[in-house]
């Protein structure tokens, strides 16, 4: 009953000053909305980056030749990764699931009268699973095809569309540098990664690429896939010492190869985007605090306006805490109402940003919860001082107040 009266009085007094209450609440609405929208942009960016990286394979180490030079002057790239290195890694390094030697070059690819200059990649059959490629149509190559230097190719969806349009690509014959290859599969689209496009390439067995297409006897890259759950850094260390030994490097010389660790890149990028999320969230929180100051301002005005009412309440027996509760409730009610509307607004803004711009947004339930409780906390924090001021009023002065 007592609570009902408190709520009733609070609602009526807020309703009696509709515009003023709305403006005070607006600050919190914008604050909560900003927090939710900002956090959803941050979370969206993070999911985006992590998702793209994961599509490249996260349990992957990429060994590339190092730069060649003398005394700090770099003159080119080593040509020192051999097929035997790849075989040794698979044989001698523990926890290695698969190894794929990779050679890479640009070449002209023709299909009847159409042609396209694309990246031609020579790889082993394990390359597809290690790099998270899915075969959309047809199949990947078998070990036998790799061993036998078969002239088969798996092409990316962009390449497929550029060359063949609506034609059925499987079992079609394309010419790479004038040599006929049978298309046996098309990869599923992964989307452009910015620095390269995995959808616009032709993948052939690395043996065929080395001997028949490019005449290379060195590899451009060795992809090493660790066993699920294995420590990639340990594998990286093992590979480093194995390759140093195989390349007969002295103790004091630098590595003549680089090892890229996808898991490390992933960790770095997700910590970057986490920092971004925190930054965006703090910007939103600042507007929420400003909103709280707005509520405090209005509550101070309200307390002054209702000084006489406070005096009457005290005269008929209200204790300090009764007055405190009344005004604190009004402040909390305003901030929670603002919080609720702000949640709705934040979600809509986040969806709008996600739909209308290139930002990916992801609304996290925990950030909604956080923004809501932060709004309530703002109400308590900024409502307490005006409420306390009301509660401490001297009844005589309050009754005499004009």
């Amino acid at each position, binding site marked *: *009953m007592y609570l009902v*009266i408190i709520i009733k*009085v609070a609602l009526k007094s807020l309703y009696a000053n509709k515009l003023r209450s709305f403006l005070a609440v607006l600050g919190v609405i914008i604050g909560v909305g900003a927090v939710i929208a900002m956090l959803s942009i941050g979370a969206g960016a993070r999911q985006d980056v992590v998702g793209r990286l994961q599509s490249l394979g996260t349990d992957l180490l990429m060994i590339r030749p190092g730069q060649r030079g003398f005394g700090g002057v770099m003159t080119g790239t080593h040509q020192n990764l051999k097929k035997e290195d790849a075989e040794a890694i698979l044989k001698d390094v523990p926890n290695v699931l698969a190894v794929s030697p990779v050679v890479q070059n640009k070449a002209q690819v023709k299909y009847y009268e159409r042609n396209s200059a694309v990246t031609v990649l020579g790889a082993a059959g394990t390359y597809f699973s290690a790099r998270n490629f899915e075969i959309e149509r047809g199949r990947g190559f078998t070990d036998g095809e790799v061993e036998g230097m078969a002239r088969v190719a798996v092409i990316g969806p962009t390449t497929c569309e550029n060359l063949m349009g609506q034609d059925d690509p499987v079992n079609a014959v394309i010419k790479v540098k004038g040599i006929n290859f049978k298309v046996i599969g098309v990869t599923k689209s992964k989307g452009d990664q910015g620095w390269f496009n995995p959808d616009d390439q032709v993948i052939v067995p690395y043996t065929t690429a080395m001997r028949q297409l490019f005449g290379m006897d060195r590899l451009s890259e060795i992809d090493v896939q660790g066993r699920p759950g294995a420590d990639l850094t340990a594998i990286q260390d093992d590979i480093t010492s194995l390759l140093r030994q195989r390349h007969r490097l002295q103790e004091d010389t630098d590595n003549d190869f680089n090892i890229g660790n996808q898991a490390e890149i992933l960790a770095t990028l997700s910590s970057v985007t986490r920092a971004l999320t925190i930054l965006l969230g703090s910007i939103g929180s600042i507007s929420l605090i400003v909103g709280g100051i707005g509520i405090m301002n209005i509550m101070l005005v309200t307390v002054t306006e209702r000084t*006489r009412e406070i005096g009457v309440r005290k005269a008929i*027996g*209200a204790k300090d805490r009764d007055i405190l509760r009344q005004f604190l409730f009004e402040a909390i009610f305003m901030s929670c109402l603002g919080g609720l509307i702000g949640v709705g607004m934040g979600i809509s803004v986040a969806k709008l940003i996600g739909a209308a711009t290139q930002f990916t947004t992801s609304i996290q339930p925990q950030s909604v919860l956080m923004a809501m409780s932060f709004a309530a906390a703002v109400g308590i924090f900024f409502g307490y001082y005006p409420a306390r001021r009301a509660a401490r009023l001297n009844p005589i002065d309050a009754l005499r107040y004009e």
Partner: protein
Amino acid sequence: MIIDAQTLVKTYELGGSTVRALDGISFQIDAGEMVAITGPSGSGKSTLMHILGCLDQPDSGAYFLAGENVAGLSRDRLAETRNRRIGFVFQTFNLLPRMSALENVELPLLYAGNHNATEPAIEALRTVGLEERMRHEPNQLSGGQRQRVAVARAIVTDPAIILADEPTGNLDSKTGEEIMALFFSLNAQGRTIILVTHELSIAKRCPRRIHLYDGRIVEN
């Protein structure tokens, strides 16, 4: 004896000089009395009313209300005393806006922690003859009706004294007369009533008068 005031002293600092608003006042009031406190403005009658109403504390002296010494009570205990022992009626009615007459009358009971406030509140409104208007808010009531609601609010906790500060000051003579009649009938029911007024015509009709001048009792 419901009120026992012993050498009450209250001083104020006003613009550098000290004003003795109450200069050692002593008097007693028995249960069931109807007393008028009169005096010109500046005589200390407002100060005395504040102390009798437990809104303020005397600088020295003792004030026993229904046997309890009020001097030196904490803010919360004073609020409880006001709630249980005193019913206020003000010149400007002082009803809470945006609350119905019934809710206004219920409020002292709610502050007392009494959850069944509605029945006694309706009963009090019936006593002042405003039962059928209990759903109306103060701005829908006439001055006389508002003052009746205020009286109902004052009696709803069944207090030891009803303290009325110029209760007819804002009313025309006819409605003022009605309110006075209400006070007389309440007194006839055995309630103790203290009227603070500067209108002699009203004071003369009270069985007992305390006249203040310069912080002292000059007629009792």
